[in-house]
């Protein structure tokens, strides 16, 4: 059985690294960990949309880096229903937050993020941005 740690990489981690925002060093460390890495298609879409609006020529390049370093995961029925329960329990969550955390939980992965909305969530790992 594979006991390797699993990390689900949220959009802010990718942006910190690629765009060198606060937390870039920690993001690099996270991506360097001996762990399986996952990313949702929704996260990929968000990061690529960010680049589409600012540096459209880089979209394919950025997408290539993410796809090479993580396994992309789509939303299925179990994730949808878990996200609904999360949204009800944590009113501060956006739909994207709920779907992302539900995806990480389905994979038994740590949810690695810079988003303070996840403060207090036991399986969320919020990286330092200072």
């Amino acid at each position: 059985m594979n006991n390797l740690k699993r990390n689900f990489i949220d959009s802010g981690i990718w942006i910190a690294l690629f765009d060198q925002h606060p937390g870039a060093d920690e993001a690099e460390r996270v991506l360097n960990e001996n762990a399986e890495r996952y990313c949702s298609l929704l996260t990929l879409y968000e990061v690529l949309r960010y680049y589409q609006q600012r540096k459209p020529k880089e979209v394919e390049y950025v997408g290539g880096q993410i796809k090479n370093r993580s396994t992309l995961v789509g939303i299925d029925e179990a994730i949808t229903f878990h996200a609904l329960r999360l949204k009800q329990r944590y009113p501060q969550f956006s739909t994207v937050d709920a779907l992302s955390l539900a995806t990480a939980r389905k994979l038994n992965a740590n949810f690695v993020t810079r988003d303070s909305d996840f403060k207090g969530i036991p399986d969320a790992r919020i990286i330092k941005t200072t």
Partner: protein
Amino acid sequence: MAFVELDEKGRCVIPKEIREKTGATKFEIIEYEPGRFVLVPVLPLKKLKGAFKTGATEREWKEFHEQFEKEFH
């Protein structure tokens, strides 16, 4: 920019100039429109930090992220 030929097994050599320029040892082939492909270098992790700077501030990223989340409400 450069022409490459495939050998009998379908292999080709990426020109040294391109390998050195990108620093990549792995490339992704993307079909960006029907019949047209681009070779996307996969950068080593140590080269990724700041590799795609947009000039946007952290605040601008947060505003984008909030707006993106609102679109799904």
